[in-house]
Protein backbone atom coordinates (compact mmCIF):
# COMPACT_ATOMS: atom_id res chain seq x y z
CA UNK A 1 0.00 0.00 0.00
CA UNK A 2 2.98 2.35 0.45
CA UNK A 3 3.65 4.88 -2.21
CA UNK A 4 7.44 4.84 -2.14
CA UNK A 5 7.43 1.88 -4.49
CA UNK A 6 9.37 3.16 -7.46
CA UNK A 7 11.92 0.44 -6.83
CA UNK A 8 9.25 -2.27 -6.74
CA UNK A 9 9.30 -3.67 -10.30
CA UNK A 10 5.63 -4.74 -10.14
CA UNK A 11 4.50 -1.25 -9.16
CA UNK A 12 6.66 0.35 -11.85
CA UNK A 13 5.48 -2.19 -14.44
CA UNK A 14 1.85 -1.45 -13.55
CA UNK A 15 2.49 2.29 -13.89
CA UNK A 16 4.05 1.86 -17.33
CA UNK A 17 1.32 -0.52 -18.45
CA UNK A 18 -1.45 1.88 -17.43
CA UNK A 19 0.04 4.42 -19.84
CA UNK A 20 0.64 2.38 -22.99
CA UNK A 21 -2.39 3.81 -24.74
CA UNK A 22 -1.67 7.38 -23.65
CA UNK A 23 -0.94 9.77 -26.50
CA UNK A 24 2.18 11.03 -24.70
CA UNK A 25 3.49 7.60 -23.69
CA UNK A 26 7.27 7.71 -23.23
CA UNK A 27 8.20 4.59 -25.23
CA UNK A 28 11.94 5.30 -25.07
CA UNK A 29 11.78 5.71 -21.30
CA UNK A 30 9.77 2.51 -20.99
CA UNK A 31 12.35 0.70 -23.13
CA UNK A 32 15.17 1.96 -20.94
CA UNK A 33 13.37 0.80 -17.81
CA UNK A 34 12.72 -2.66 -19.32
CA UNK A 35 16.34 -3.02 -20.39
CA UNK A 36 17.70 -1.89 -17.03
CA UNK A 37 17.12 -5.20 -15.26
CA UNK A 38 15.75 -8.63 -16.28
CA UNK A 39 13.38 -8.50 -13.29
CA UNK A 40 11.65 -5.53 -14.91
CA UNK A 41 10.77 -7.60 -17.94
CA UNK A 42 9.41 -10.44 -15.81
CA UNK A 43 7.38 -7.98 -13.73
CA UNK A 44 5.96 -6.40 -16.86
CA UNK A 45 5.08 -9.82 -18.35
CA UNK A 46 3.12 -10.73 -15.26
CA UNK A 47 1.19 -7.44 -15.24
CA UNK A 48 0.43 -7.49 -18.97
CA UNK A 49 -0.66 -11.16 -18.89
CA UNK A 50 -2.96 -10.52 -15.96
CA UNK A 51 -4.47 -7.47 -17.64
CA UNK A 52 -5.04 -9.43 -20.87
CA UNK A 53 -6.54 -12.32 -18.92
CA UNK A 54 -9.02 -10.00 -17.20
CA UNK A 55 -9.88 -8.43 -20.55
CA UNK A 56 -10.52 -11.83 -22.14
CA UNK A 57 -12.64 -12.98 -19.19
CA UNK A 58 -14.46 -9.66 -18.72
CA UNK A 59 -17.95 -10.92 -19.64
CA UNK A 60 -17.66 -13.89 -17.28
CA UNK A 61 -16.24 -11.67 -14.53
CA UNK A 62 -18.96 -9.06 -15.06
CA UNK A 63 -21.57 -11.78 -14.51
CA UNK A 64 -20.14 -12.38 -11.03
CA UNK A 65 -19.63 -8.75 -10.07
CA UNK A 66 -23.02 -7.12 -9.31
CA UNK A 67 -23.49 -9.13 -6.10
CA UNK A 68 -20.02 -8.11 -4.98
CA UNK A 69 -20.78 -4.48 -5.68
CA UNK A 70 -23.83 -4.63 -3.44
CA UNK A 71 -21.69 -6.01 -0.63
CA UNK A 72 -19.08 -3.36 -1.15
CA UNK A 73 -21.54 -0.47 -0.97
CA UNK A 74 -22.95 -1.34 2.45
CA UNK A 75 -21.11 1.39 4.27
CA UNK A 76 -21.58 4.25 1.84
CA UNK A 77 -24.31 6.86 1.30
CA UNK A 78 -27.43 5.98 -0.67
CA UNK A 79 -26.44 7.87 -3.77
CA UNK A 80 -23.84 5.29 -4.68
CA UNK A 81 -25.98 2.20 -5.21
CA UNK A 82 -28.11 4.31 -7.56
CA UNK A 83 -25.06 5.32 -9.43
CA UNK A 84 -24.12 1.68 -9.77
CA UNK A 85 -27.52 0.73 -11.01
CA UNK A 86 -27.08 3.29 -13.73
CA UNK A 87 -23.61 2.05 -14.38
CA UNK A 88 -24.86 -1.49 -14.68
CA UNK A 89 -27.47 -0.38 -17.17
CA UNK A 90 -24.99 1.13 -19.58
CA UNK A 91 -21.93 3.25 -20.11
CA UNK A 92 -21.26 6.76 -18.94
CA UNK A 93 -20.88 8.01 -22.46
CA UNK A 94 -24.28 6.71 -23.46
CA UNK A 95 -25.76 8.44 -20.44
CA UNK A 96 -23.81 11.55 -21.33
CA UNK A 97 -25.17 11.36 -24.86
CA UNK A 98 -28.70 11.10 -23.49
CA UNK A 99 -28.12 14.05 -21.22
CA UNK A 100 -26.72 16.12 -24.06
CA UNK A 101 -29.85 15.33 -26.02
CA UNK A 102 -32.06 16.64 -23.22
CA UNK A 103 -30.03 19.81 -22.79
CA UNK A 104 -29.36 20.74 -26.37
CA UNK A 105 -32.38 19.34 -28.13
CA UNK A 106 -32.70 17.75 -31.54
CA UNK A 107 -29.61 19.32 -33.09
CA UNK A 108 -27.32 16.75 -31.46
CA UNK A 109 -29.16 13.96 -33.23
CA UNK A 110 -26.92 14.60 -36.21
CA UNK A 111 -23.76 13.77 -34.30
CA UNK A 112 -22.80 10.14 -34.50
CA UNK A 113 -21.49 8.44 -31.41
CA UNK A 114 -19.13 5.60 -32.28
CA UNK A 115 -18.52 2.58 -30.11
CA UNK A 116 -15.83 -0.02 -30.81
CA UNK A 117 -14.60 -3.09 -29.00
CA UNK A 118 -11.26 -4.85 -29.24
CA UNK A 119 -10.87 -8.54 -29.96
CA UNK A 120 -11.14 -9.45 -26.27
CA UNK A 121 -13.87 -7.17 -24.96
CA UNK A 122 -17.62 -6.85 -25.09
CA UNK A 123 -19.40 -3.69 -24.09
CA UNK A 124 -22.84 -2.68 -22.83
CA UNK A 125 -24.33 0.63 -23.96
CA UNK A 126 -27.62 2.25 -23.00
CA UNK A 127 -29.03 4.17 -25.92
CA UNK A 128 -30.66 7.55 -25.49
CA UNK A 129 -34.14 6.04 -25.85
CA UNK A 130 -33.47 3.63 -22.97
CA UNK A 131 -32.85 0.58 -25.16
CA UNK A 132 -29.87 -1.57 -24.27
CA UNK A 133 -27.19 -2.49 -26.78
CA UNK A 134 -24.47 -5.04 -26.17
CA UNK A 135 -21.46 -5.08 -28.48
CA UNK A 136 -19.59 -8.27 -29.26
CA UNK A 137 -15.82 -8.53 -29.51
CA UNK A 138 -14.16 -6.80 -32.46
CA UNK A 139 -17.24 -4.78 -33.37
CA UNK A 140 -17.92 -1.22 -34.42
CA UNK A 141 -21.20 0.70 -34.45
CA UNK A 142 -22.21 4.30 -34.80
CA UNK A 143 -25.37 5.65 -33.21
CA UNK A 144 -27.29 8.70 -34.33
CA UNK A 145 -30.70 9.97 -33.32
CA UNK A 146 -32.06 10.31 -29.84
CA UNK A 147 -35.59 9.00 -29.30
CA UNK A 148 -35.56 7.17 -32.61
CA UNK A 149 -32.08 5.68 -32.69
CA UNK A 150 -30.41 4.84 -35.96
CA UNK A 151 -27.61 2.35 -35.45
CA UNK A 152 -25.15 1.40 -38.11
CA UNK A 153 -23.31 -1.86 -37.48
CA UNK A 154 -20.12 -1.41 -39.49
CA UNK A 155 -18.54 -4.64 -38.40
CA UNK A 156 -19.06 -7.45 -35.91
CA UNK A 157 -22.17 -8.20 -33.88
CA UNK A 158 -24.51 -6.45 -31.49
CA UNK A 159 -27.63 -7.43 -29.59
CA UNK A 160 -30.49 -5.11 -28.71
CA UNK A 161 -33.12 -5.07 -26.05
CA UNK A 162 -35.62 -2.48 -27.16
CA UNK A 163 -38.25 -0.85 -24.99
CA UNK A 164 -41.71 -1.08 -26.43
CA UNK A 165 -42.88 2.34 -27.55
CA UNK A 166 -45.29 2.56 -30.50
CA UNK A 167 -44.29 6.16 -31.19
CA UNK A 168 -40.86 5.31 -32.47
CA UNK A 169 -38.90 2.65 -34.26
CA UNK A 170 -35.31 1.66 -33.77
CA UNK A 171 -33.42 0.95 -36.99
CA UNK A 172 -30.25 -1.09 -37.25
CA UNK A 173 -28.41 -0.93 -40.56
CA UNK A 174 -26.06 -3.82 -41.30
CA UNK A 175 -24.43 -3.95 -44.71
CA UNK A 176 -27.15 -3.41 -47.30
CA UNK A 177 -30.02 -4.21 -44.91
CA UNK A 178 -32.19 -2.34 -42.43
CA UNK A 179 -33.72 -4.08 -39.45
CA UNK A 180 -36.72 -2.30 -37.91
CA UNK A 181 -38.03 -2.98 -34.51
CA UNK A 182 -40.65 -1.71 -32.09
CA UNK A 183 -39.92 -3.61 -28.91
CA UNK A 184 -38.02 -6.85 -28.74
CA UNK A 185 -34.72 -8.59 -28.15
CA UNK A 186 -32.59 -9.48 -31.13
CA UNK A 187 -29.01 -9.68 -32.37
CA UNK A 188 -27.41 -8.58 -35.63
CA UNK A 189 -24.10 -9.65 -37.13
CA UNK A 190 -22.28 -8.01 -40.02
CA UNK A 191 -19.26 -9.96 -41.22
CA UNK A 192 -18.02 -8.07 -44.27
CA UNK A 193 -21.47 -7.65 -45.73
CA UNK A 194 -22.83 -11.06 -44.76
CA UNK A 195 -25.64 -10.22 -42.39
CA UNK A 196 -27.38 -12.39 -39.78
CA UNK A 197 -30.36 -11.45 -37.68
CA UNK A 198 -31.61 -13.60 -34.78
CA UNK A 199 -34.70 -12.78 -32.75
CA UNK A 200 -35.18 -13.79 -29.09
CA UNK A 201 -38.46 -11.96 -28.36
CA UNK A 202 -41.02 -10.07 -30.40
CA UNK A 203 -40.43 -9.55 -34.10
CA UNK A 204 -38.43 -7.41 -36.51
CA UNK A 205 -38.73 -6.57 -40.17
CA UNK A 206 -35.75 -6.82 -42.50
CA UNK A 207 -35.40 -5.08 -45.85
CA UNK A 208 -32.64 -3.85 -48.14
CA UNK A 209 -32.15 -0.15 -47.40
CA UNK A 210 -32.16 0.59 -51.13
CA UNK A 211 -35.75 -0.48 -51.80
CA UNK A 212 -35.79 -3.06 -54.59
CA UNK A 213 -39.53 -3.57 -54.68
CA UNK A 214 -39.48 -6.72 -52.61
CA UNK A 215 -41.60 -6.93 -49.48
CA UNK A 216 -39.79 -6.74 -46.14
CA UNK A 217 -39.18 -10.05 -44.41
CA UNK A 218 -40.66 -10.44 -40.94
CA UNK A 219 -38.71 -12.47 -38.42
CA UNK A 220 -40.31 -13.67 -35.20
CA UNK A 221 -38.89 -14.99 -31.94
CA UNK A 222 -36.93 -18.19 -32.47
CA UNK A 223 -35.95 -17.39 -36.05
CA UNK A 224 -32.68 -16.50 -37.65
CA UNK A 225 -32.04 -15.10 -41.10
CA UNK A 226 -28.61 -15.39 -42.77
CA UNK A 227 -28.07 -13.22 -45.82
CA UNK A 228 -25.11 -13.54 -48.16
CA UNK A 229 -25.72 -10.79 -50.76
CA UNK A 230 -22.76 -11.78 -52.93
CA UNK A 231 -24.09 -15.33 -53.29
CA UNK A 232 -27.71 -14.14 -53.48
CA UNK A 233 -28.72 -16.38 -50.59
CA UNK A 234 -31.07 -15.60 -47.72
CA UNK A 235 -31.82 -18.54 -45.46
CA UNK A 236 -34.30 -18.64 -42.60
CA UNK A 237 -33.80 -21.16 -39.81
CA UNK A 238 -35.33 -22.02 -36.44
CA UNK A 239 -33.15 -21.42 -33.40
CA UNK A 240 -33.49 -21.61 -29.65
CA UNK A 241 -34.40 -18.08 -28.47
CA UNK A 242 -31.98 -18.54 -25.56
CA UNK A 243 -29.09 -18.89 -27.99
CA UNK A 244 -29.52 -15.36 -29.38
CA UNK A 245 -26.40 -13.29 -28.62
CA UNK A 246 -24.96 -16.13 -26.55
CA UNK A 247 -21.60 -14.50 -27.25
CA UNK A 248 -22.44 -12.04 -24.49
CA UNK A 249 -21.52 -14.70 -21.96
CA UNK A 250 -18.48 -15.84 -23.88
CA UNK A 251 -19.97 -18.83 -25.66
CA UNK A 252 -21.36 -19.79 -29.03
CA UNK A 253 -23.97 -22.52 -29.00
CA UNK A 254 -25.18 -24.36 -32.07
CA UNK A 255 -27.84 -26.93 -32.69
CA UNK A 256 -27.33 -28.70 -35.98
CA UNK A 257 -25.80 -25.61 -37.61
CA UNK A 258 -24.25 -26.03 -41.07
CA UNK A 259 -20.46 -25.83 -40.91
CA UNK A 260 -20.21 -22.74 -43.18
CA UNK A 261 -22.26 -20.81 -40.62
CA UNK A 262 -20.04 -21.89 -37.74
CA UNK A 263 -16.93 -21.13 -39.80
CA UNK A 264 -18.20 -17.61 -40.51
CA UNK A 265 -18.51 -16.97 -36.77
CA UNK A 266 -15.05 -18.38 -36.05
CA UNK A 267 -13.51 -16.37 -38.84
CA UNK A 268 -15.00 -13.21 -37.34
CA UNK A 269 -13.53 -13.84 -33.89
CA UNK A 270 -10.16 -15.10 -35.11
CA UNK A 271 -9.89 -12.12 -37.46
CA UNK A 272 -8.69 -14.45 -40.20
CA UNK A 273 -10.45 -15.72 -43.30
CA UNK A 274 -11.67 -19.30 -43.16
CA UNK A 275 -12.97 -21.14 -46.21
CA UNK A 276 -15.09 -24.28 -46.04
CA UNK A 277 -14.27 -26.59 -48.92
CA UNK A 278 -17.15 -28.45 -50.64
CA UNK A 279 -15.99 -31.72 -49.04
CA UNK A 280 -16.86 -30.34 -45.59
CA UNK A 281 -19.79 -28.06 -46.45
CA UNK A 282 -22.32 -30.78 -45.60
CA UNK A 283 -21.11 -31.19 -41.99
CA UNK A 284 -23.29 -29.94 -39.17
CA UNK A 285 -22.27 -28.96 -35.66
CA UNK A 286 -24.15 -29.13 -32.38
CA UNK A 287 -22.42 -27.98 -29.25
CA UNK A 288 -20.92 -25.07 -27.40
CA UNK A 289 -17.68 -23.25 -28.23
CA UNK A 290 -15.85 -20.98 -25.78
CA UNK A 291 -14.86 -17.73 -27.47
CA UNK A 292 -11.88 -16.64 -25.33
CA UNK A 293 -9.70 -14.50 -27.57
CA UNK A 294 -10.95 -16.26 -30.69
CA UNK A 295 -7.78 -18.20 -31.42
CA UNK A 296 -9.00 -21.50 -29.97
CA UNK A 297 -12.42 -21.75 -31.58
CA UNK A 298 -11.26 -23.69 -34.60
CA UNK A 299 -9.36 -26.06 -32.40
CA UNK A 300 -12.46 -26.75 -30.33
CA UNK A 301 -14.41 -27.48 -33.49
CA UNK A 302 -11.74 -29.83 -34.80
CA UNK A 303 -11.92 -31.81 -31.60
CA UNK A 304 -15.42 -32.97 -32.48
CA UNK A 305 -15.69 -32.81 -36.27
CA UNK A 306 -13.58 -34.73 -38.81
CA UNK A 307 -11.78 -31.70 -40.22
CA UNK A 308 -8.37 -31.14 -41.73
CA UNK A 309 -6.79 -27.72 -42.27
CA UNK A 310 -5.07 -26.72 -45.45
CA UNK A 311 -3.41 -23.36 -45.92
CA UNK A 312 -3.23 -21.62 -49.26
CA UNK A 313 -2.22 -17.99 -49.80
CA UNK A 314 -2.71 -17.11 -46.16
CA UNK A 315 -6.25 -18.47 -46.12
CA UNK A 316 -7.18 -21.50 -44.04
CA UNK A 317 -9.34 -24.05 -45.80
CA UNK A 318 -11.41 -26.56 -43.88
CA UNK A 319 -11.78 -29.90 -45.56
CA UNK A 320 -13.25 -33.17 -44.47
CA UNK A 321 -10.70 -35.53 -42.95
CA UNK A 322 -10.73 -39.27 -43.68
CA UNK A 323 -13.22 -40.73 -46.11
CA UNK A 324 -12.56 -40.49 -49.81
Amino acid at each position, binding site marked *: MMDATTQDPIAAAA*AWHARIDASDMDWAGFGDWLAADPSHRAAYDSIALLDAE*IGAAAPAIAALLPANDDDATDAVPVSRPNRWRWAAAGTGSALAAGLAFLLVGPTVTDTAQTYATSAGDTRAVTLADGSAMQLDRGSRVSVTGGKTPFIELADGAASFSVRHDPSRILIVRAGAYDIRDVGTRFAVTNARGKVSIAVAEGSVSVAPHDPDGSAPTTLVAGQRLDIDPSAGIAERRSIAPASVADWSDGRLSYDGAPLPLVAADISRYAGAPLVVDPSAAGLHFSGVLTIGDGSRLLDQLRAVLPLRLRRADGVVHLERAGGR
Partner: protein
Amino acid sequence: MLAANRPQLVRFFAGRTGSVAEAEDVVQEIWLHIGRPTDGPVAGPIANPLAYLHRIGMNIVLDRVRANGRRVRRDAGYVEATISIAGAEAVDDAPSAFDAVASRERIGHLAAALAGPPEGAMRVFRRHKIDGLSHAEVAAEFAISRSAVEKHIAVALRHLRKALDD
Protein backbone atom coordinates in the same frame (compact mmCIF):
# COMPACT_ATOMS: atom_id res chain seq x y z
CA MET B 1 7.07 4.41 -42.05
CA LEU B 2 8.60 1.30 -40.54
CA ALA B 3 12.01 1.65 -42.15
CA ALA B 4 12.65 5.07 -40.65
CA ASN B 5 11.69 3.89 -37.19
CA ARG B 6 13.31 0.49 -37.39
CA PRO B 7 16.40 1.17 -35.20
CA GLN B 8 14.25 2.72 -32.50
CA LEU B 9 11.80 -0.19 -32.57
CA VAL B 10 14.54 -2.82 -32.48
CA ARG B 11 16.12 -1.08 -29.51
CA PHE B 12 12.81 -0.90 -27.67
CA PHE B 13 11.88 -4.52 -28.33
CA ALA B 14 15.37 -5.70 -27.40
CA GLY B 15 14.57 -4.26 -23.98
CA ARG B 16 11.10 -5.76 -24.02
CA THR B 17 12.22 -9.28 -25.03
CA GLY B 18 15.78 -9.34 -23.67
CA SER B 19 17.23 -10.28 -27.04
CA VAL B 20 18.19 -8.31 -30.13
CA ALA B 21 17.49 -11.34 -32.36
CA GLU B 22 13.98 -11.68 -30.98
CA ALA B 23 13.49 -7.95 -31.33
CA GLU B 24 14.36 -8.25 -35.03
CA ASP B 25 11.75 -10.99 -35.36
CA VAL B 26 9.14 -8.88 -33.62
CA VAL B 27 9.81 -5.88 -35.85
CA GLN B 28 9.51 -8.19 -38.86
CA GLU B 29 6.14 -9.37 -37.56
CA ILE B 30 4.99 -5.79 -37.04
CA TRP B 31 5.76 -5.22 -40.70
CA LEU B 32 3.80 -8.31 -41.72
CA HIS B 33 0.93 -7.23 -39.53
CA ILE B 34 0.52 -3.73 -40.89
CA GLY B 35 1.00 -5.00 -44.42
CA ARG B 36 -2.03 -7.26 -44.20
CA PRO B 37 -5.21 -5.37 -45.04
CA THR B 38 -7.59 -8.07 -43.85
CA ASP B 39 -6.49 -7.79 -40.24
CA GLY B 40 -8.98 -6.75 -37.61
CA PRO B 41 -10.28 -3.23 -37.29
CA VAL B 42 -7.95 -0.57 -36.01
CA ALA B 43 -9.51 1.39 -33.18
CA GLY B 44 -9.73 4.93 -34.46
CA PRO B 45 -7.49 6.88 -36.78
CA ILE B 46 -3.76 6.38 -36.43
CA ALA B 47 -2.75 9.73 -35.03
CA ASN B 48 0.65 8.59 -33.86
CA PRO B 49 2.21 5.96 -36.15
CA LEU B 50 5.20 5.29 -33.93
CA ALA B 51 3.03 4.65 -30.89
CA TYR B 52 0.85 2.43 -33.09
CA LEU B 53 3.86 0.37 -34.18
CA HIS B 54 4.94 -0.02 -30.57
CA ARG B 55 1.46 -1.15 -29.56
CA ILE B 56 1.28 -3.78 -32.31
CA GLY B 57 4.71 -5.03 -31.28
CA MET B 58 3.66 -5.16 -27.63
CA ASN B 59 0.76 -7.44 -28.55
CA ILE B 60 3.05 -9.65 -30.62
CA VAL B 61 5.50 -9.97 -27.73
CA LEU B 62 2.71 -10.79 -25.30
CA ASP B 63 1.49 -13.55 -27.60
CA ARG B 64 5.03 -14.89 -27.73
CA VAL B 65 5.33 -14.75 -23.97
CA ARG B 66 2.20 -16.86 -23.71
CA ALA B 67 3.28 -19.25 -26.42
CA ASN B 68 6.67 -19.83 -24.84
CA GLY B 69 5.06 -20.62 -21.55
CA ARG B 70 7.16 -18.02 -19.80
CA ARG B 71 4.22 -17.50 -17.57
CA VAL B 72 4.32 -16.21 -14.07
CA ARG B 73 1.02 -17.79 -13.20
CA ARG B 74 1.30 -21.55 -13.42
CA ASP B 75 -2.21 -22.81 -12.86
CA ALA B 76 -4.11 -23.88 -15.91
CA GLY B 77 -6.50 -21.25 -17.02
CA TYR B 78 -8.06 -18.95 -19.41
CA VAL B 79 -5.17 -17.70 -21.46
CA GLU B 80 -2.96 -20.79 -21.27
CA ALA B 81 -0.72 -21.13 -24.30
CA THR B 82 -2.88 -19.04 -26.55
CA ILE B 83 -1.49 -17.88 -29.85
CA SER B 84 -3.62 -15.22 -31.38
CA ILE B 85 -1.57 -13.11 -33.76
CA ALA B 86 -3.33 -14.49 -36.80
CA GLY B 87 -5.64 -17.37 -36.04
CA ALA B 88 -4.74 -18.78 -39.42
CA GLU B 89 -1.14 -19.43 -38.49
CA ALA B 90 -1.74 -20.42 -34.93
CA VAL B 91 -4.44 -23.01 -35.20
CA ASP B 92 -2.28 -25.97 -36.17
CA ASP B 93 -0.09 -25.67 -33.12
CA ALA B 94 -2.72 -25.03 -30.51
CA PRO B 95 -3.05 -27.77 -27.90
CA SER B 96 -6.23 -29.74 -27.49
CA ALA B 97 -9.44 -27.85 -27.59
CA PHE B 98 -11.26 -28.52 -24.40
CA ASP B 99 -8.19 -27.64 -22.31
CA ALA B 100 -9.15 -24.08 -23.11
CA VAL B 101 -12.46 -24.15 -21.33
CA ALA B 102 -12.46 -21.28 -18.89
CA SER B 103 -11.62 -22.08 -15.33
CA ARG B 104 -14.61 -21.00 -13.28
CA GLU B 105 -12.57 -20.99 -10.12
CA ARG B 106 -10.02 -18.64 -11.61
CA ILE B 107 -12.73 -16.27 -12.79
CA GLY B 108 -14.19 -16.32 -9.29
CA HIS B 109 -10.82 -15.28 -7.88
CA LEU B 110 -10.49 -12.50 -10.44
CA ALA B 111 -13.98 -11.20 -9.69
CA ALA B 112 -13.34 -11.29 -5.94
CA ALA B 113 -10.08 -9.38 -6.32
CA LEU B 114 -11.77 -6.84 -8.59
CA ALA B 115 -14.47 -6.28 -5.98
CA GLY B 116 -11.89 -5.96 -3.20
CA PRO B 117 -9.69 -3.13 -1.95
CA PRO B 118 -8.56 -0.50 -2.71
CA GLU B 119 -12.10 0.47 -3.55
CA GLY B 120 -11.54 3.66 -5.56
CA ALA B 121 -8.84 2.21 -7.78
CA MET B 122 -10.82 -0.98 -8.40
CA ARG B 123 -13.92 1.00 -9.33
CA VAL B 124 -11.95 2.94 -11.95
CA PHE B 125 -10.32 -0.27 -13.18
CA ARG B 126 -13.65 -2.09 -13.51
CA ARG B 127 -15.24 0.73 -15.48
CA HIS B 128 -12.33 0.61 -17.91
CA LYS B 129 -11.55 -3.08 -18.17
CA ILE B 130 -14.86 -4.79 -17.42
CA ASP B 131 -17.34 -2.22 -18.75
CA GLY B 132 -15.09 -1.20 -21.62
CA LEU B 133 -14.95 2.58 -21.13
CA SER B 134 -11.89 4.37 -22.48
CA HIS B 135 -9.60 6.24 -20.10
CA ALA B 136 -11.13 9.50 -21.31
CA GLU B 137 -14.66 8.25 -20.65
CA VAL B 138 -13.75 7.04 -17.17
CA ALA B 139 -12.08 10.38 -16.45
CA ALA B 140 -15.24 12.23 -17.49
CA GLU B 141 -17.51 9.96 -15.47
CA PHE B 142 -15.51 10.28 -12.26
CA ALA B 143 -14.58 13.91 -12.94
CA ILE B 144 -10.86 13.20 -12.57
CA SER B 145 -7.90 13.77 -14.88
CA ARG B 146 -6.66 11.14 -17.31
CA SER B 147 -3.44 10.98 -15.39
CA ALA B 148 -5.45 10.17 -12.25
CA VAL B 149 -7.21 7.39 -14.18
CA GLU B 150 -3.81 5.97 -15.13
CA LYS B 151 -2.66 6.09 -11.53
CA HIS B 152 -5.80 4.34 -10.29
CA ILE B 153 -5.39 1.65 -12.92
CA ALA B 154 -1.74 1.14 -12.03
CA VAL B 155 -2.62 0.82 -8.33
CA ALA B 156 -5.42 -1.63 -9.17
CA LEU B 157 -3.12 -3.76 -11.35
CA ARG B 158 -0.50 -3.90 -8.62
CA HIS B 159 -3.05 -5.02 -6.03
CA LEU B 160 -4.65 -7.53 -8.38
CA ARG B 161 -1.25 -9.06 -9.08
CA LYS B 162 -0.55 -9.37 -5.36
CA ALA B 163 -4.04 -10.65 -4.52
CA LEU B 164 -3.82 -13.37 -7.15
CA ASP B 165 -0.30 -14.42 -6.23
CA ASP B 166 -1.32 -15.04 -2.62
